[in-house]
């Protein structure tokens, strides 16, 4: 369990990090919180020639409200998200989700940028980005660009980040009046990767939803913004309607099977989460049971 030999460079600025990445490309890996990269290196699952440590780049750390946008620097640690009053106020879904990320020791080191760039389909934050409609801010040789979260995640551990790119921040719209969120995941033990999880962001209107965004995770090779949600927006929610949405969700998802759950079990749990989410957001305990067939 010793990593194979590698070169190490501590980036002195974003520009310096980008230079290093431009030179070394695929042979380099960015070290942020190191909570996924270091174990993978110790298991010799990855063996980069060069580690570009961006840990000292203070400019990438921090949470700020700029106008109607919440900006979170890539190096912001999970523990910081959990403690931030801006997060509680402007993106409470994130605060709810971060509590489920692993354990305190990991939250003290792991970063939001690292988690998103790693793009583990079972992790919480990518699904939150989908539910919140985030933009991922990326800097590369060609300058800075923003990618919609929905387009960013492309597969297992795969994103639209190129080898020369650095994820520098995420931008989120501020939570508005009447917005509500729901977060729940089913994990065998607290802190484990979820078997299935749901990060949901809603705009409530009267007895129903003006908008509902359902970010499922651990249901396939990347987080899924469920289209079935559209069936529940702008209409009065009945058990029958929920059952219809639940069916649609079941057809829409193409979950994987592993040691924890078969695809059928993941579908089932996704439907349970849908029912629990809608019942909770609308405070309708009757739907809690009704949505599960």
């Amino acid at each position: 369990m010793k990593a194979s030999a590698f070169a190490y460079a501590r980036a002195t600025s974003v520009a310096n990090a980008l230079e290093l990445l431009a030179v070394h490309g695929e042979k380099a890996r960015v070290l942020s919180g190191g909570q996924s990269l270091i174990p993978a290196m110790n298991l010799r699952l990855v063996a980069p020639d060069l580690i570009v440590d961006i840990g000292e780049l203070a400019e990438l750390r921090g949470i700020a409200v700029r106008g109607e946008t919440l900006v979170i620097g890539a190096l912001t640690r999970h523990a910081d998200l959990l403690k931030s009053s801006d997060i509680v106020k402007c993106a409470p879904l994130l605060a709810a989700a971060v509590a489920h990320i692993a354990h305190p020791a990991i939250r003290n080191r792991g970063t939001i940028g690292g988690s998103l760039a790693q793009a583990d389909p079972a992790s919480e934050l990518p699904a939150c980005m989908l539910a919140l409609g985030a933009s991922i801010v990326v800097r590369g040789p060609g300058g800075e660009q923003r990618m919609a979260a929905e387009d960013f995640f492309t597969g297992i551990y795969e994103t639209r980040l190129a080898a020369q790119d650095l994820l520098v921040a995420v931008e989120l719209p501020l939570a508005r009046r009447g917005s509500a969120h729901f977060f729940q995941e089913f994990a065998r033990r607290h802190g484990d990767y979820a078997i299935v999880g749901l990060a949901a962001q809603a705009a409530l209107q009267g007895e129903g939803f003006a908008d509902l965004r359902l970010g499922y995770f651990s249901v396939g090779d990347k987080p899924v913004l469920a289209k079935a949600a559209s069936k529940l927006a702008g209409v009065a929610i009945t058990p029958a309607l929920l059952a219809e949405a639940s069916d649609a969700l079941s057809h829409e998802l193409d979950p994987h099977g592993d040691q924890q759950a078969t695809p059928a079990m993941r579908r089932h749990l996704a439907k349970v989460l849908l029912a629990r989410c809608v019942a909770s957001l609308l405070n309708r305990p009757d739907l809690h049971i009704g949505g599960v067939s």
Partner: protein
Amino acid sequence: MSSIRSNPEGLSVLDRPNSYIGKTVPRPNLDRLLQGRGCYVSDIELPRMAHVVFVRSPHAHAKIVSIDAAAARQMPGVNAIVTGKELAAVITPWVGVLSHLKGLKSAPQSAIAVDRVCWQGEAVAAVVATSRAAAEDAAECVAVEYQALEAVTDMRTALDPATPVIHASLGDNLAFERILDAGAVDQAFAGSDAVVEAEFVFGRHTGVTLEPRSVVADWNAAEARLTIYQGTQAPHMVQNIAALHLGLWEQQVRVVCKDVGGSFGIKVHIYADEMATYALTKLLRRPIKFVADRVESFNTDIHARDHRCKGKIGVNRDGIITAFEIDDLTGIGPYSMYPRTSAIEANQVVNLVGGPYTCKNYRARARVVFQNKNVMCQYRAVGHPIACSVTEGLVDLAAMKIGMDPVEIRRRNLIADDAYPCASPSGLRFEQLSHHASLAKIVEMMNYQALRAEQAELRKRGVHRGIGVASFIEVTNPSAAFYGVGGAKISSQDGVAVRLDAQGSVICQTSITEQGQGSESLTAQIVGSALGVSMDRVRVILGDTDATPYGGGTWASRGAGIGGEAALQATKILRRNILDVAAAILQSAPAELDIVDNAVVSAGDGAPRIDLSELARIVYFRPDTLPPGIQPELMATRHFVPREYPFAFTNGVQAASVEVDIDTGFVKLLKHWVVEDCGTIVNPQLVDEQIRGGVVQGLGAALFEKCVYDEKGQLTNANMADYLVPMSGEMPDIDVGHVVSPTRESELGAKGAGEAGAAGAAAAVTNAVNDALKPFGTTITEIPLTPQVILTALGRI
């Protein structure tokens, strides 16, 4: 959490004014460990020491066609690359059998595989280098060509004629079979009002010690002496085996066991890679360190509990159990483990099923088969969890069938507390158990009736809670009957030497070992109490074959019961010797003197007469002032082994309260209770935490832990992310209560407490889950009880 116990009655020599017996006192090694000053094998650095990494087979079963190490030998820092054939020059192979397990067979096993590998993870070459990292780099460059062979993985088909035989010389894949038939089973079933059958399936799991297995072996060619630093439970056993297979006298081998980060039975065996490390130091003449990494640990630390057991119970309408029958099948990997063998677990299952009950009709068959998976052997509470889950699962099924409360059916069948001594149908002899007192106590602790009422109320609201109960018996204080009679050089006796030093403090050398359970503390408590000195004046030395008396070590719940008694008897001799000298100095009689608070006092009024430090000064430095004819002996040694009973059986009962989410299949552990009877309790906190630790391991088996193999014999979850150990977040409060029935085999009266928690926890939880699922008409007899298993049973997926 709370802890409830009844006070033990008068404790003879130990019931003294300043006794530490029955008191929670801090363990002497606490400060050292908490200040990070412990010394584990990984901490040991010797001059010229090299590190070994093993190239391990990726195949479950394959011929080794060739090993090309030329490129690896050129890597920086590499000292040597050694194959099995090369290592065979200095170490002989072994066969893990014992003569009292009739018919048990196994094949010769080598320290490093020669010609053929039999499980994924078996070592095929050793890479020795200046650092672990350098050795890992080189190991990647060793090119091994394999020719894959068909792997035997499913224990159910291991004996089929169509299945390949793993060791041709053995003729078949059957390692061991035991058949028992007691009473009149067929007649009893025929006359029963109801008969219930089920198949119980147990997940193969492992011990996951915090500190992995580790060895530093140092052959000093000039002294012709091998020093082995190893985290082991049985230093003298390691000494014997290493000497035997390296062609040395035992006195040429010193085994030093410093701090150990958990063992649980994992570290009581002889592993091939550890043997290879001993051999490598002899071959290469430099100290060699082997520290298993976590992946290696999962692939090579013994696994346990891989059983499928069919069970049958007969019951009458009045709740009286008429007969038990089991047919147990277990797969142990390609070799019977050395030297304790891999047949003990199945043998224990046969011994223990039905053990708490009066029913005399019992038939059992156990078959142990070879397969191409990692080796299986004894892990904490060997066989107990299987036997308890099968027995208690059957008892609950019987209760359900006749519509009787689970507590009531146990009341009607448990052996009466005044029926001892007596024996079980399998021939186990019980000196004194307390099933009914224990059951009564746990029912009170958990407020059983109120829990039942709450369960009924919540069920109306769609909340599905369950209550499970499991009675058990536990094997502790093993005599020579466990291993010695079968020919293994594993001592069942332990020795303790105590001596007064020149300042009146006590040096105590004991052959039991410390792996975190508090052996050091309980020894100091007993010595301090029996002698009359404070614990801070007692230094306990353990874990060094050069420095301690000969003995078994710490396993099978024997530390307090056997090592503790030896400490008591040795200290009594030392006390008598001290009082003899004191009487001579003080011109008094030994009977008129006592030792209290580090000083000799008048027995009558407690008046101080002479400090032990002053007595020691006279004895060691001014013996010329002693009366003629007095030769003080301020060192005393005693050994102890139980002789009357092969094992000191203990008993207890566990109960679990759980909530099952029927939409998700998740089980929430709400509360757990244990009442057990380990006889005299030396240190209540240590006993309670032994129980709780064991319960947690049992809960791991119930809900989480399983080594998942694919059909090709690949272990697919050999890491801490995929193999789920129980974590504190999911653990319930565990209330522990005690009933105290001291054994009369020893003056101390202590029996073991190490297995109790693990023995019954899974059975209690499984019964609780099935109780919760009762309205759905489904019963699950498979652990771990994963959400997938529960949702499947409920027909939800």
